[in-house]
């Protein structure tokens, strides 16, 4: 399976990445090489094999619905690029 520059642009946008023309060219080539490598998986017959999502086959632990952590928002927001009135600020989305 190989993909072209248009498809790579589309994936980059899905991942919210922007590539220059040169980067697009290099990445298309390298991503195709990687897809060729991972394409080896298609050689294996794995019908009926359970997919392995967790190495120890553990299921998600549930905890009691209790508040245990203190409100640490001031500390956490102290490293934000931009805050105002305890909100994270981003460029205007709706006028």
């Amino acid at each position: 399976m190989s993909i072209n520059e248009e498809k790579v642009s589309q994936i980059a946008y899905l991942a919210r990445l922007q590539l220059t023309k040169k980067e697009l060219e290099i990445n298309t080539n390298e991503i195709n090489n990687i897809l060729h490598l991972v394409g080896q998986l298609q050689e294996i017959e794995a019908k009926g094999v359970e997919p392995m999502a967790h190495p120890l086959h553990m299921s998600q632990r549930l905890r009691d619905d209790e508040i245990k952590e203190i409100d640490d928002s001031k500390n956490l927001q102290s490293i934000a690029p931009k805050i105002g009135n305890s909100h994270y600020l981003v460029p205007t989305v709706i006028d």
Partner: protein
Amino acid sequence: MHTKTLTQLSNGLAKKEFSSTEITKHFINRIKSSKLNSFITITEDIALEQAKNADNRIANNKQEALTGIPYAHKDIFCTKGVKTSAGSKMLDNFISPYDATVSHKLNTAGTVMLGKSNMDEFAMGSSNENSYYGSVKNPWNLNKIPGGSSGGSAAAVAARLSPFATGTDTGGSIRQPSSLCGITGIKPTYGRVSRYGMIAYASSLDQAGPMTQNAEDAALVLNVMAGFDKKDSTSADKDVEDYTEKLEESINGLKIGLPKEFFSEGLDDDVAKNILRAIKEFESMGASVKEISLPNSSYAIPTYYIVAPCECSSNLSRMDGVRYGYRCDNPKNLEDLYLRSRSEGFGEEVKRRIMIGAYALSAGYYDAYYLKAQKVRHLISDDFKKAFKDVDVVMGPVSPTTAFDLGSVKDPVSMYLADIYTLSANLAGLPGMSIPAGLSKNLPVGLQLIGNYWSESKLLNIAHMFQQQTDWHKKTPQEY
């Protein structure tokens, strides 16, 4: 001073032969005069403060095994009030507001953090050349890579700039640099060490562990690092053994499995010779050797390079320039903020893996890539299950070659092939270890030990007994 093991340092501290402050200053000076670029941040003030506290604890006889002992902390572990960059421009301004569980445990034990060690960006790399802060140099030869992603930690311990270091291993990132720098490193069973506050690369594979001079030291550090943590939903609720307890057990009758797939095409002849000599050493100690097969191990590379990028594309979506980390200048709108912050903040390899992951998870491709990889992952894991019915431990090389030249491997696929022997243990979630087992053209060769689930104690015992018979772990690069 700097060649002392952790036990020797601990005894010296207890007998007041030297103080923690003295050894801390000694190691800080060594780091400052080194040319290895193994640290991103040197935390001298914190170290001296922690050393002072440790000296007080020791004076009051309230010390634990590692109290007062300095270490290098991989820059992937969050450290409150200290920059935690994960080797990325994206987090160059990230002063962590909280401690990782591993950081907290090391603090509680009274250890002294010398600094944050260099690494491949977000732990993606096998050579440490993907760090925003520049490559780390291998202390055995400054033109060579130290391995990755925990390259800074490995170089620092190898050059005796730090008595021990922390590392993380997603596809070999503790074992491979340990091998290439000639130190001892152990990746425990998945879930043994808490991942809370350890910046996530691939959540179902990531696992932290110690990087040390020898197996006894690794046992002492793992005693501190390991344990169940409610804050990590993937942490295993299982008691921790005292890993030093069984170090001296005889390994007479040990059954070693050598996977024929680990000794085939691509393995450097001289590396193979060193590994086989080490296996002979085990035979002389009463172990028996059997050839085994891990028939699906050749699919570890394609499986890993689907699973890990998929998980990283999800994990790194949090780096969006909104709540912390890098934000681009003058964003035009929200989309521009996301696009430019991420494109300017991430390095090339990280972007590439995010794109591979985004592609493999996208509609229409999920079954062919991600689901298929998860199935093959099961087959790889089953191969080990079968093997451990017959043998106690699997052994082989860590890396197909010794350390290669800085800048010599340019294309990503060739770099990925260097991980061939280490990936399977991560995919299966098994513990793995690298111990020094020889030198090839004056560069270290590491022997890999892979054990069954929760067999850390056994692996450390096997490694320790080997280190009682050999002195490869005592060899240091000439300059150091």
